[in-house]
Structure formats: C-alpha cells, structure tokens
C-alpha cells in the first residue's frame, strides 16, 4: 500500500494548486454543485416533509416516493439525462437532487411526527394558528432530526457529485476520472482524499450548525 506516497506526491506537486485544473478551482466547483443540489433538494423536501409531518397525512405515499427515488441509480440517471438532454449542468443536478430528496423528506416527516403531542395540543388549546404551531412549537423541537436529514443528504451529494466529471463538468471528480483514463493513481488517490475531506468537513459544519441553532432546552432534553 503506497497510497500515502500518491497522496503526498499529489499534494506536493505545485502545479496542482493553481489554474483551471488546480485544487482550489476544482474544490470550489465541487462545493458549488453540492450547494446547488442541496438547495434544490431542500426546497422540495423540507416543505413537503413539514406539511405531511404536521398533518400526519400522506405518510405512506411519502414512504413510497422515497423508496422509488432511492431505487433510481445515480450514475444511470446521469447517463440517461446526458443522452436525453446533452451536456450541461441539468443532467448532473437531476440525479443529485433525486439522491438528496428522500433523506430530507423522510427525516423531516419523521422529525415532525415524533414531536411530543402534549405541547402541540397545549399550543392548539391556547388558540395558536396551525402555521404558528408548526414553526414555533414543532420545528424547534424537531430541528436536530431535520438537520440530520439535511446532513445525510449533503454528505451523499458531496461524494456523489464526483460523477459530474464523467459528463465533462468540473469538480473534484475530474481528478478521479482523468486519473482513470490517464492511468495516473496520484490524481485518483488525491481526488478521493479531497472528496473524503470535504465530506468530513460537511459533517463538522453540520455539527457546528446544530450546536448553534438548536435551542438549549431541546438539546438538554435529548
């Protein structure tokens, strides 16, 4: 196992640090793709999850949709979208969003459902409107779990966004795909390391966000 040598060689080669194929450029592209996909997936998953969770209706439909979306293979979807739509960002975004929606959707639904019913009933008894109940009672309590759904989605996106390189986009996958065709292990291993580091950074970020955003009362009780 001389993987470490590859990693070392990759990161100490100064030409890997600037230009259009430099690590900062590729990493930034990767982050952009990931953020974009996460934003779209959250825009779909969060409202639907909150609404179904709050009303308690549609749980079975939701579970079916999530299972179906999970069943779609990301790489296959990517190639299919390329064959149908041609080059561009859209063929990459579709598989990434399909990948990220189920965890966000399911966890958000679960999170709202699992909120203790007594404070909800109390709020209702006090005459709070349904949106206020959702956002001022249920969401704060459900926040840790909702964040964990977003976190899973983000990590899956970060490590899967590498496939963008197969249809000629940038991102850290570039090093892996180029390395495969150039038979350059240094690039493959270097690229994989960067993706893993980015995934772990994402984990850390979500941990920090959840420390900051979750109300201390909720944190104590869990």
């Amino acid at each position, binding site marked *: *196992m001389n*993987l*470490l040598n590859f*990693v*070392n060689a990759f*990161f*100490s080669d100064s030409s890997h640090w600037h230009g*259009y*194929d430099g690590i900062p450029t590729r990493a930034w592209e990767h982050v952009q793709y990931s953020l974009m996909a996460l934003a779209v997936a959250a825009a779909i998953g969060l409202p639907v999850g909150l609404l179904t969770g709050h009303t308690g209706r549609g749980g079975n439909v939701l579970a079916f949709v999530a299972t179906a979306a999970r069943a779609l293979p990301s790489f296959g979807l990517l190639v299919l979208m*390329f*064959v149908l739509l*041609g*080059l561009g960002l859209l063929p990459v975004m579709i598989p990434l969003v399909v990948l990220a929606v189920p965890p966000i959707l399911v966890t958000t639904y679960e999170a709202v459902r699992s909120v203790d019913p007594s404070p909800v009933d109390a709020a209702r008894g006090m005459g709070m409107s349904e949106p206020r109940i959702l956002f001022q009672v249920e969401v704060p309590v459900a926040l840790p779990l909702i964040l964990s759904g977003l976190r899973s989605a983000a990590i899956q996106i970060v490590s899967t966004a590498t496939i963008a*390189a197969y*249809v*000629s986009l940038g991102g850290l996958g*570039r090093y892996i*795909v*180029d390395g*495969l*065709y*150039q*038979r*350059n292990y240094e690039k493959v291993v270097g690229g994989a*390391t*960067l993706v*893993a*580091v980015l995934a*772990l950074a994402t984990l850390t970020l979500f941990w920090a966000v959840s420390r900051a955003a979750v109300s201390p009362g909720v944190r104590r009780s869990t």
Partner: protein
Amino acid sequence: MTSTANTSTSSRRLPGAAAVALAATAALLAGCSSSSGTKSDDPLANDKASGDTVVVGSNNFAESILLADIYGEALKAKGVKVTYKPNIGSRETTYGLLKNGSIKVLPEYNGALLAYLDKKAVPKTVAATTAAINAKLDSKLTLLDPAPAQDRDSITVNAATAKKYNLTEKSTIADLKNTAKDLALGASPEFQARQQGLLGLKSVYGLEFKSFKALDAGGPLTQSALQKDTVQAADIFTTDPTISKEKFVVLQDPKNLFGFENVQPLVYKSGLPQKGVEALNAVSAKLDTAALLDLDSQVQLGNKDPLDVAKGWLKSAGLG
C-alpha cells in the same frame, strides 16, 4: 501549504483502516466468488484457460469495439477460438493488459501508439512508424501489418467557428495561432497529458487554448460539446460520421503531430497462432479509410449492431 499538511495527516489513518477492511472483505469475497465460480468467461480473472482461446480486447470507443469484432470474427472464420473483452478503457490501461497477456489482440492506431511509447518520434512514413514502434515495444508484443485505413485524431472546429475565422478544409492547425486563445478545446481526459494532445499542440504548433474541457475519446460527449458550441475546437476522429453530418471542419496537420494513424493489430506474440496472424493481415490488406468510415456510420448513425456490421463487411470482403 498548511492545508497540504492537514490533508495528509487526516488521510494517514485511512489507508491503514482501509487495508484491514479490504483484507477482510477480500478474503471473504474470494471465498464467495470461487464457490459461485461457474461462470469462467472473465478472461482477466483467470488466465489459465488462455492457451487455446484468443482474447480480443478493445478500447472505450465505438470504432475500437467494431474493429475488435472484425478481428475476432476473421479469426473465428479461420477456426481460432475467440472471446471478446470490449470497452476496457484507454490505451493507458489496455497496453498494460496486453503486456501481461490478459488480452491477446487489440486494434491499435500506429501513430497514437508510437506517441504513447515515444513522445519525441516524428516518423515520415508508415514503415518508419512501424520501425519506431518496434524499437520501443515490449518484447512480448508485436505489430501485424498496418491497414491502409486511417483514423486520425484531429483538431476539428464546428461550423460556426469555421465561419467566424474563415477556416476551410485547406486550413491548418497552425492557422489557429492567433485565435486559439479565444477558443475552448475539448478532448478526452488523457489528451491533457499526451504528446498527441495539449503537450504537442504547444511544443509543435505553439498553441495554447483559452481552456480545456475533458470529454471522451471522440465519442458522444465530444460530438455533443462541439455541436452545441460548448467547445469551439475538439479532438474528433477523422472517421467520425458526425463530421459530415454536422459540417465540422477538420484542420490539416502539416507538421504531422497526429502522425500516421493506420489501423493496426497489436498482439501478444505467444497468444496468437500463425493462422490467426494470417487472418488479421488479410483483414488489414482490405480495410481502407472509406470502408471504415462507412462501417462507423452504420454503427453510430444507422443503429446497427457492430457484430453484424463486422460480419457483413468480412463477408463482402471475402474473409468471412
């Protein structure tokens, strides 16, 4: 350079852990796959049965698969047992597999092969190309006769770019001298690191493009990118049927950067019987560029199966 230090420390744990996990699962999977090993059709997994069967491999693009079919069927017609290993990858991978005998026959292109083996060679004739390759070729490998059919890498521009910069069939790569800095170039990922690629374009023609977009080996990504003007120039194979369909303009290559690109079988010496050598040489004698272009269009535009196309051509050439 602090981030360098960071990444290498955080990845230090990783190989060790990976090794343990891999060793465990590898041992397990070895057990699983040998017990379920009724299928022995993977020529790369077990080399033992290779004595009498010739494994014909191909690179990861449509024409290579078609040529492998032609070679394989020609061998079968002479009573040689053949298995196929199509769509393996780029030359960087297939050459290694040929060298260790995992595959025995591979359709090659003489100029590209030479550029892979010797970055500096600029031969003037086909024979000189063959000689130069033989000088560098692994001793276990040999080239059979080259076919007159050529399929060169090329710098090809799309119709809009040709119009904008007044480029015609007579224009050369050198004519891009002043415009290259405004053009995006697309080609396979391996093109970036090859002499017959960005390196040669710079050293031979002094060209540096505005940007490089990694696509595929003259395949659908490249075709689509050029057509949609995502890139203005691209490495397209000269036998690509989309050139005439999309009115792409292939630029001349007076300095022979892309050299001769005759289709030529590269074989693992001890893996192919004499009658096989004769069969493949007979194929090369008949295969010219017009025929290859026609066969490529049948497969890539006509929706026909490469194997049927290969068989049809062999029959019409009296080799099937």
